[in-house]
């Protein structure tokens, strides 16, 4: 065992965790997650209080994950422990992203039909949900109308408010109203219940008349729902029915049926808002292996802006559907385009193909000076169809005869793409709705 005579204090050769300065200990532990921290606390009694250090250790745990997204110290008026905050934020982070409203039953504002696309993002001390709808001004702008605030009280309990008609222009001060006069009178208090990671139910919190058995805000085991995302609507409907069936009416054993019915009617009268279900849109962005995947926006042939969702299926195909204002489940819509193969046709293109592309008009906002050249040259091409009518495969070979395919996708150098059909002369160029988690070209609703 070597003892270095320069290091007068160090007589033990092997380093022990206890020898480390506390800063170092905290730094290492701050990279663990809570269950690993619990295991570490089992190694020795000496470290139990270290693992419980809220101001430093648990703050670091939260800071590493969410410090750049939100103001940790403002959640719950700064009165909750960071250990509790960690559990809450881990749950709420599942909300972040794009969701679809299913079976919209509540009447929205007079001026615009209910939007089916919803976007949740981090706020300074809450998560906000906004309805996203295409602007009507002929540009690529999208209207973002915040309508839901998901937050917590200073005791760490959920506190969520709904502004279904988007009547109020929210500032943080308004939301921090400690007397709650404004919040309680003008907004609807709601419960946000997670049914797995991809399904959320938002329903009115009717206080003492409220639900006998609301699913807790805890998340059910994520794995069973992971595969359920994007699955056919039947599964979602059965989940919704199951949820409604599990709710018990107020009152309980020993309360007469008539009394229960009266209470239920009272509850229905007070209710200002019907429960709504939201399903997460997974795969919102393109990846290297799936460059066409995700949520896009484009000007279609009636010169209005529309939203499109492009999804890859499990058998090597791709389909695109409009994400519109209809409340029907997505898969019941006819696709805008589809293809059973996602293998791009490599350049160079035949003169015939070049001709098909170059004589087309790119649909773009008249007011803006968008140059389709901004996207770069066409790099790859894909054959697509627009209807599910039988396409007779070419007997001679595995590839489909280009003349029998109804349309084309042209992928540009900058990663975006446009599509068009042989039956007309247009190209619908698609742009990203969001990039790196930020909504692009968002504007506030003009009538507040």
């Amino acid at each position, binding site marked *: 065992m070597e003892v270095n005579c320069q290091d007068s204090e160090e007589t033990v050769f*092997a380093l022990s965790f206890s020898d480390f300065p506390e800063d170092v200990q905290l730094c290492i532990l701050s*990279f663990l997650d809570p269950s690993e921290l619990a295991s570490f606390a089992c190694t020795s009694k000496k470290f139990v209080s270290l693992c419980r250090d809220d101001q430093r250790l648990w703050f670091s745990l939260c800071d590493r994950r969410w410090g750049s997204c939100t103001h940790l110290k403002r959640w719950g008026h700064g009165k909750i422990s960071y250990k509790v905050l960690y559990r809450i934020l881990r749950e709420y982070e599942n909300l972040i992203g794009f969701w679809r409203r299913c079976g919209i039953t509540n009447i929205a504002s007079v001026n615009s039909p209910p939007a089916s696309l919803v976007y949740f993002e981090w706020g300074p001390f809450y998560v906000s949900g906004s309805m996203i709808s295409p602007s009507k001004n002929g540009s690529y702008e999208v209207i973002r109308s915040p309508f839901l605030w998901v937050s917590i009280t200073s005791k760490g309990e959920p506190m969520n408010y709904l502004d279904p008609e988007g009547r109020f222009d929210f500032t943080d001060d308004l939301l921090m109203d400690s007397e709650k006069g404004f919040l309680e009178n003008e907004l609807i208090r709601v419960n946000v219940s997670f049914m797995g990671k991809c399904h959320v139910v938002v329903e009115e919190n009717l206080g003492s008349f409220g639900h006998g058995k609301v699913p807790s805000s805890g998340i059910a085991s994520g794995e069973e729902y992971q595969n359920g995302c994007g699955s056919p609507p039947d599964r979602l409907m059965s989940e919704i029915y199951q949820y409604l069936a599990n709710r018990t009416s107020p009152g309980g054993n020993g309360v007469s049926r008539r009394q229960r019915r009266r209470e239920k009617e009272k509850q229905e009268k007070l209710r200002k808002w019907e429960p709504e279900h939201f399903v997460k849109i997974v795969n919102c962005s393109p990846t290297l292996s799936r460059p066409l995947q995700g949520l896009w926006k484009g000007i279609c042939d009636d010169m209005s802006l529309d939203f499109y969702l492009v999804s890859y299926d499990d058998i090597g195909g791709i389909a695109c559907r409009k994400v519109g204002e209809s409340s029907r489940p997505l898969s019941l819509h006819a696709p805008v385009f589809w293809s059973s193969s996602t293998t791009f046709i490599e350049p160079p293109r035949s003169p015939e193909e070049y001709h098909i592309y170059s004589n087309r008009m790119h649909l773009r906002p008249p007011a803006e000076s968008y140059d389709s050249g901004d996207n770069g040259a066409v790099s790859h091409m894909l054959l697509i169809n627009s209807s599910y009518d039988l396409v007779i495969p070419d007997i001679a070979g595995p590839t489909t005869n280009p003349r029998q395919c109804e349309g084309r996708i042209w992928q540009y150098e900058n990663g975006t793409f446009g599509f068009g059909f042989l039956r007309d002369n247009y190209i619908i160029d698609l742009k990203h709705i969001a990039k790196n988690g930020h909504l692009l070209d968002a504007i506030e609703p003009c009538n507040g």
Partner: protein
Amino acid sequence: MSSSEERKLILKSSDNEEFVVKESSAVQCLTIKNLVEDRCVSDPIPLANVDSKILALVIEFMEKHAETTLSNSEKKEFDVEFVKKPFDDLLELILAANYLDFRELMDVLCNTCAKQMENWSVEEVREKFNIQNDYTVEEEKAARAENPWAFE
């Protein structure tokens, strides 16, 4: 010969080995940066708590991360290879990074340690970190069962 970019410092390890480094790289270590700014730089700078083997590694990391021509992903690739070292070396590097106040190196090393800890049992953690178990059998059972921080 431009003076400020090329300015060099001499760092001396605890076992009296001397290393020449560019000042612009060395100031990533706030301890050294403070010395330079306060004009307390002696020649060479003695680092009593860091031996030559560890100091050489710190300098390797320091110079790589000071290179402006490298992209972030290239630096990350370097980091991945850099941390493939025996666990005890990583611990010594952590102490050196703490002493030198070299934040970036500290975070990379601590993150690596934590990742390795993910796969270890409680016994393995004790062994690698030389932690003495001071729980009685009953106490340890209770501690493991309690698991207050593990969220489902």
